Structures are given as structure tokens and as C-alpha cells.
């Protein structure tokens, strides 16, 4: 655990600041004219200082008071990362209300479940799309009294008896603010708030069953945010870009809690499609993203470089070679010969600098990847460019922070050391347990599940199997504890471990491995349409759909080569040699969250997929050369259709186990 640098203690903050509205009041004085939030609107970055944010939040809070918000009321927040939605969190918390962010791409039924379960009395939503969704299920939501929207477009003719524009509520609030009694009531409500009160309820997407509402207190979130800031020496000068779902604990910590606690600026992109451009314009210093964002950046770069001229291509590959050899060593401040330093400096000017500028990583100080394992190639690529990308292991139940990699101790296959104030231990069955100030209060309305997950003395079962690497002292995560199984032969079967190895190939987007209690391991694959599509374009392969490309001879050949490489690498690992992939197929459709095959955070739901594609799973294990299936799919507009597929199953040769087992045999 790194020593706590007391000088990095957030400026002017003390134990008296135990809720977000109190932090906001503090920031409005200590950082009054520093930027708190930016939003690109109509092509221009608009900035709000902390003082202005405090004013906006106050107006909205007073407006909510007029609408009758009470202490303890739950208020749903639905939408993408927009300033007003972040402000509404603080405004709700000012009255002691509890914001409940909901995934904005949820279909109406999923949304209804969360709003119903949370018993939300109000909802603050982004636009007409979300208003429509909620209105369509309003008969299931008897508690929902008011609906407030940010973007008025298309809503002019709606019945406004329960529906309010954000500005209208603020106007109501500003008027109420002239009444000294009402203003004092708000001040009093803020003063009453304390650290033990609930700050937020976050519904976890859950790879199994209905989502659970994780209750986090102000203390949970604020102490975790502060410790996270200390761990990486974050200051009020950081810039981040908020683009991950509001309902995800990571966004709540990085784009809301840490911004309030440390006083740094959060930037909201113009739209979901402009993020790459917006990132470049902002040049964030503190970044957070799931591995797939980094994967996409790398895939896009490689795809575009394929189209570049020969000179540029040679320069690019030459300097990438230099970076691969020396970049990480330079970043880790290891001794490096002068000639390498000079070459790397030249590469910085010609290749790395412009590339980082493209990525928006020019000013990056700390970048995190979490949520899933990141491919070692991808991880090293970014680090070799001089980007301080690190891994973190966290959960909603821990207010994110469990372990993270300290600067200078970076390994592609670990998730780091316990964060400040976090205790981690490994149970006898290999499950990771942790205890920290960030540990959640409980699951909302579900004491049974809470008791299953959290012991009375505060230890939480993470559900993940892992171990501490004796060499580095870092934690390594193998898989979800319940997913780690055995083949019929008794050999270890860790599906996610295999899937991650496969997914590290840019051509493979998703993989689902099967093998529990079977004789051997098989798997489903999804090709990556960007990478394979670009390959198809370069090689004059024409295709009309995902299905057609996925079934193409040459594509299958390419994928077969990847699987073979994975098998060879598995053969080199004594524990894994038994789980080489014997048979696989490329699915005829992309796995999709709308069909329930992925969670909203894009993790595969293995059990669900196994049921849905049962005929294909059977075909994989019974030796038939092809599999046939009909599946129902949900289109983006909610209509259902049927996709029929006839997919080829490919048999793989098994590599002889090398590694330890092999050496033993040789002795």
C-alpha cells in the first residue's frame, strides 16, 4: 500500500464535508471560478464554473422542493452524460433524496422494473425518447408523480400536467428562492444530511437474473473517491470526459463523486458519435474506459494505417517497433541506453505524439481500464506510446475501488494491489473477499441477497476467483467463481480465461466457451465487423450481411488460425492444457444486449446463451459437421424477427501439452 501523501489531501476539505451538496457549497468558494463542467452544444464547448454549477443546482433543488420532493424519496435519472442530469443528482441529494440512475438504452420493460422496484417518485430524463419509454409503462409505476426532461424537442404537445421542462422547474425554484423561508428550508435540509445517509442506488446489470439495487452511502462514495484520488495524486486541475453510462458505478465515481471531492472538471461530449473528436478537443488528463474502448482505438488505428501510403506505413511500423522495445521501460523509469532514448524521442515527434493527439491522450496522466481483462497486446501498445494506462479491479458493491496498479508496477495480467483502506483476502474456495470503507450498505429491498454477499463483519464476497501472485504481490483474477468449473476429466475449466484469450484477436469480437462437465471444450465466436469488414474490403471479398461474412470460407480460415494459436498457448500452461478448444463455430448473428445475450455493460450471459442456442451447443458436442438454428431477434425499434442460420462447425487439432508437464515427461 503506498504511503498516504497528506499534502495531496483535497484542498480545504474536512470531515465536515460528508455529503455532495456540502462539497458543492465548498467548491463554490474554494474553486469558485474554476471550470466544473463543460458541454459541447451547437458545436461550442460551454463551460460552467463551480459557482455557476452551485447556482444551477440550487435553482433545480428549490424547484424539486416545490414539486414535493421529500427526504428519502428515490428519483430516477435516465439519459446520457448531460450536465443537467449530473446537476439533478446533487439537487436530489440536497433534500436527502436518492438518485437512481438507469441505463438509458434499457428497453421500456427493463426500465419499468427498476423504477418500480426503486419506487421512484420522480424521474429526470434526457429527451422525448426516454419520456415515451416511461409513459408507455406508466401503468406499472403508480408512485411516479413527476417527469422532468432536459431536451424539449418533440414534447411541445404532450400533456404537461405531470411533465416538466428542466428549465421550468429551475424557474419555479428561482422564484421559490426569493421566499426566505423556502431558501432556509433547503439550507436546513442540506445541513441535516450526513455521511451515513444513502447517496445513491445503482442497479447492477447482473449477468444472472434481474438487476439488484446496490445502496451506497455518502461515506461509501466520498471516502472511496477521496482515496482513489490520493492513490493517483489527482488534483482539481484534472480533465475527464464523461461518456460511460450514468448508471454504472464507475461513471458515478469518476465523473461525479471525484469531481465534487477533488474539484476537477468533467466534460460532456456533444453526442455518442462525436466522442472521438470531443476527446481530442479536450485532451483529458484522467481517463477511464472498459477495455473495448482501447480495443476499438487500436483496431481503428490499424485499419486506417492499412490504407496509408507506403512511406507512412513504414515509418509507423518502424517506430512502433522502437516503442515496443523501449517505450514501457522509459515509462517505468528503468535505465535505457541513450540511443534508444533518442530514437524514442524522434518517434514521439513523428508518430507517438500525433497518434496520442488523435486519441485525445496528449495530456493523459492516468488512464484506467477495468471491467474486463484487457488483451496484453493492447495494453502494451498504449503503454509503449507513453500513456500511463493501468488496470483496476472494482465492483459496484465496493464503490469501485478494490485493487489498482500503483505507478511503476504495471503488469498486463494483474489487477494490482489493494487500494488505500481496502483489505483483500482469498477464501478457501479461491474467491476474492474484500472489506473497505466503500463497501455497500446493502441491496435495496433484498436483505437475503445482502446477507449472502456481505458478512456481518463487513467482508464482501466478490464472486470472482483469484489469487495473489507471489512474485509481484498483485491480485490476479481468473474468472467468476461460479463459472470456474471442471471438465469431465477433472481438468480445470475457466471459460472467461479462454474467451479473453480469443477476444484479444482484433478479428474476434465475442467468444463464449462451453465445457462444464463435458469431455472437451468448445466455443461460439462472433467476428468483429470493423476488423473483418476492412479485411474483406482490402481483399475484394463482397458480403451483404454479418451472417454472410461470418460464414465466408476465408474468414473461417483466418479464425481457425487464431483458435489454433490460442490452443498452442494453452498447451504451454500446465493448468490449462486440458481446456484446448476442440470444436468451434462462428455464430450467424452478433450477440446483443437487446436480445438479452449480453448485459448492458456488454458482458456475455453464458447460461442464457447456452439455453438459447441449445441445438448449436449440442451440435458442437455430438460431432455433427454443421449446426442449424432459428433464433428470434429484437430489432432496434422493438419489433421481433427471426434469423435462421446454418453454421459450419470446425474441428481443431490438439497440441501436445508443453510447459511443465512436458518437461516432467522428458525427465
Amino acid at each position, binding site marked *: 500500500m503506498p504511503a498516504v501523501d497528506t499534502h495531496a489531501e483535497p484542498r480545504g476539505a474536512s470531515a465536515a464535508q460528508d455529503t455532495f451538496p456540502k462539497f458543492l457549497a465548498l467548491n463554490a468558494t474554494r474553486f469558485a471560478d474554476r471550470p466544473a463542467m463543460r458541454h459541447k*452544444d*451547437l*458545436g*461550442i464547448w460551454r463551460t460552467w464554473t463551480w459557482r455557476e454549477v452551485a447556482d444551477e443546482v440550487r435553482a433545480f433543488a428549490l424547484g424539486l422542493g416545490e414539486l414535493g420532493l421529500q427526504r428519502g424519496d428515490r428519483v430516477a435519472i435516465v439519459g446520457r452524460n448531460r450536465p443537467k442530469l449530473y446537476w439533478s443528482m446533487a439537487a436530489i441529494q440536497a433534500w436527502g433524496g436518492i438518485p437512481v440512475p438507469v441505463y438509458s438504452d434499457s428497453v421500456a420493460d427493463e426500465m419499468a422494473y427498476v423504477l418500480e422496484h426503486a419506487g421512484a417518485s420522480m424521474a429526470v430524463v434526457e429527451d422525448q425518447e426516454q419520456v415515451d419509454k416511461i409513459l408507455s409503462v406508466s401503468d406499472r409505476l403508480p408512485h411516479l408523480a413527476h417527469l422532468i426532461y432536459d431536451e424539449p*424537442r*418533440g414534447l*411541445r*404537445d404532450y400533456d404537461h400536467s405531470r411533465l416538466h421542462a428542466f428549465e421550468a422547474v429551475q424557474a419555479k425554484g428561482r422564484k421559490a428562492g426569493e421566499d426566505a423561508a423556502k431558501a432556509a428550508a433547503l439550507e436546513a435540509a442540506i445541513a441535516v444530511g450526513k455521511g451515513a445517509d444513502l447517496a445513491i442506488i445503482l442497479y447492477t446489470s447482473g449477468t444472472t437474473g434481474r438487476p439488484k439495487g446496490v445502496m451506497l452511502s455518502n461515506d461509501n462514495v466520498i471516502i472511496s473517491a477521496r482515496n482513489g484520488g490520493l492513490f493517483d495524486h489527482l488534483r482539481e486541475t484534472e480533465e475527464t470526459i464523461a461518456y460511460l453510462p450514468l448508471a454504472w458505478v464507475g461513471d458515478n465515481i469518476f465523473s461525479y463523486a471525484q469531481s465534487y471531492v477533488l474539484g476537477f472538471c468533467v466534460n460532456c461530449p*456533444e*453526442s455518442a*458519435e*462525436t466522442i472521438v*473528436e470531443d476527446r481530442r478537443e479536450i485532451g483529458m488528463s484522467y481517463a477511464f474506459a472498459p477495455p473495448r474502448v482501447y480495443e476499438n482505438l487500436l483496431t481503428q488505428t490499424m485499419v486506417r494505417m492499412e490504407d496509408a501510403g507506403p512511406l507512412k506505413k513504414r515509418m509507423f511500423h518502424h517506430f512502433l517497433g522502437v516503442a515496443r522495445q523501449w517505450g514501457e521501460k522509459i515509462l517505468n523509469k528503468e535505465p535505457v541506453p541513450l540511443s534508444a532514448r533518442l530514437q524514442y524521442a524522434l518517434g514521439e515527434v513523428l508518430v507517438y505524439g500525433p497518434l496520442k493527439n488523435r486519441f485525445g491522450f496528449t495530456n493523459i496522466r492516468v488512464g484506467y481500464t477495468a471491467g474486463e481483462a484487457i488483451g496484453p497486446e493492447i495494453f502494451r501498445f498504449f503503454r509503449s506510446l507513453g500513456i500511463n494506462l493501468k488496470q483496476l479491479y472494482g465492483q459496484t458493491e465496493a464503490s469501485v475501488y478494490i485493487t489498482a496498479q500503483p505507478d511503476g508496477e504495471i503488469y498486463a495480467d494483474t489487477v494490482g494491489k489493494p487500494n488505500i483502506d481496502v483489505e483483500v483476502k482469498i477464501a478457501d474456495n479461491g474467491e476474492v473477499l474484500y472489506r473497505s470503507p466503500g463497501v455497500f450498505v446493502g441491496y435495496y429491498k433484498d436483505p437475503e441477497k445482502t446477507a449472502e454477499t456481505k458478512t456481518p463483519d463487513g467482508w464482501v464476497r466478490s464472486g470472482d476467483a483469484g489469487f495473489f501472485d507471489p512474485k509481484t504481490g498483485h491480485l490476479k483474477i481468473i474468472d467468476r467463481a461460479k463459472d470456474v468449473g471442471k471438465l469431465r476429466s477433472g481438468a480445470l475449466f475457466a471459460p472467461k480465461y479462454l474467451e479473453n484469450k480469443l477476444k484479444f484477436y482484433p478479428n474476434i469480437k465475442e467468444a463464449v466457451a462451453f465445457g462444464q462437465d463435458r469431455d472437451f471444450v468448445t466455443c461460439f465466436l462472433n467476428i468483429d465487423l470493423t476488423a473483418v469488414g476492412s479485411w474483406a474490403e482490402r481483399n475484394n471479398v463482397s458480403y451483404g450481411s454479418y451472417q454472410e461474412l461470418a460464414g465466408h470460407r476465408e474468414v473461417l480460415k483466418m479464425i481457425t488460425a487464431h483458435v489454433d494459436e490460442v490452443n498452442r498457448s494453452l498447451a504451454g500452461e500446465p493448468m490449462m492444457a486440458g481446456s484446448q478448444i476442440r470444436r468451434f463455430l462462428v455464430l450467424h448473428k452478433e450477440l446483443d444486449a437487446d436480445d438479452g445475450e449480453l448485459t448492458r455493460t456488454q458482458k456475455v450471459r453464458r447460461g442464457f446463451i447456452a439455453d438459447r442456442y441449445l441445438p448449436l451447443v449440442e451440435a458442437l458436442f455430438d460431432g455433427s459437421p454443421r449446426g442449424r438454428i432459428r433464433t428470434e431477434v429484437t*430489432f*432496434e*425499434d422493438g419489433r421481433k424477427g427471426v434469423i435462421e442460420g446454418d453454421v459450419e462447425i470446425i474441428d481443431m487439432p490438439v497440441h501436445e501439452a508443453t510447459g511443465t508437464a512436458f518437461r516432467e515427461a522428458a525427465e
Partner: protein
Amino acid sequence: MRAPSPTDIAAGEVILAVENVSLAFGGVKALTDVSFDIKKGEVRAIIGPNGAGKTSMLNCINGFYHPTEGRITFRGKTRPKMRPYEAAAGGIARTFQNVALFKGMSTLDNIMAGRTLKMNKGFFWQVLRHGPAMAEEIEHRHFVEEIIDFLEIQHIRKVPVGKLPYGLQKRVELGRALAMQPEVLLLDEPMAGMNLEEKEDMCRFILDVSNQYGTTIALIEHDMGVVMDLSDRVVVLEYGRKIADGTPDEVKRDQAVIDAYLGVPH
């Protein structure tokens, strides 16, 4: 986006009337004695089988063709020969069946081009790009940005239009037409060649334009589902003649229309 320039015509009154219009190219009769009207604020569809004269009709309305016979009255004024730029200046904007954008220019520049008629400063001022010309440009840019926001095309703001997929080009073209703040918007097959999702987006934009700004819309479309859902009234052409006119339901039940679309046994 701001409302279009004010007008003395109230919603529901006739803004554009076509009376006994005929159009002939030599011996070929494209239109024969067609009459109908468009009321302010409505969505009016013109449908008909291929070659029925729908596009010719739109071309007459915006002054690209001049009818050989008959009159077109727009906002109470009848002009024997209206030039396209007069139509444009008068508040009629259109999009084309085959996208007609400046392919090498960015989305932003294309939509800015739609503001040309609204610019007051002369060429010299604009070349200088200073003082009043700059102030004017900023004002127009703001308007254009509102359209970009409205049509959700921020991500292609600076992309040359020629590089964009078809569906997006259509959207940019709509944007350019909207930049004129038209009173009447003529859309020639706005959804041709689009996939379902693009069509749905386009429908939403058309309805939003109509609801929010009260813009009168006349559109030609082949997708019957779209026509029936979007339009308030439909006029049906066949071989240059009007064979039906009414609400979508009336038109759907009209025997002449059914015959025109499905054919009659001979």
C-alpha cells in the same frame, strides 16, 4: 431553431394552390389538368406509380418547369413564370430524388450554403470576413448549428459529404433545405433507398419539422406505410392526371387508386 419568417396566412388556410396545371414536353404530356391545394402546416403527400408525373409536379411548384397551361398560386400571388430562385426567396425549399449536394464540401458548408439567400452583406464584406460580415456569419452559423443538432449529425459536421453513406446525405440535404427557413418544404422521395432505421429517423425529423416549426410539407414517397402514417392529405397521380385526393384512409379505399397500383384485369 427559430420559426420561419412570419406570414399572414393562418394554419389550415390554403398556402399554395395548383389549378388546372398541364405540362407538355413536345408531344409528351407529363401533366394534364391537375388541381389541388396545400394548406398551411399540413403534410401533403403526392403519390402515384412510376412516371405518374410526381416529380414534374414538384418541379412546376418550385419554378423549375413552367406549366404549359394552368396557374400556381403561392401565398395569394400568381406568377406566370416563376424562376427557381424566386421560389426559393419566396419560401419554397426542396430536396431532390437523387441527392444534389456539393460532394466535396463538408456537411457544415453544405448547410451554410442554404443560408445564402438570407445573407445581407455583399460579396466584398464576405471576402473580408470581418466586422459586420463576421457578425452575420456567426449568426448564421448558430442557426446552422441548431439544424445540425436537430438532425443529430454533429459527428459528420466536418466530413466531406461525398464520403457519407446515402442515408446521411439525405439528412444533410434536408438540413440544407431547412436552413432556408422555408414556409413550404418539398421533399422528393426523402426515404428512397434507406433501411428501416434510417426511414424511421427521417419520419421523426419530418414530423418534428412539421410540429415544431409549423412548416408546410409536400412530399413524394413510394413507401405506402410512410405516406399513410405521415401525411394529413394525399393526392394521387396516374399518367399525369389526378385520380384521387383526400385523407390517407379515403385514398386507400378509392377504387381508382387500387386499380392504378394493382392493375385492372383486361
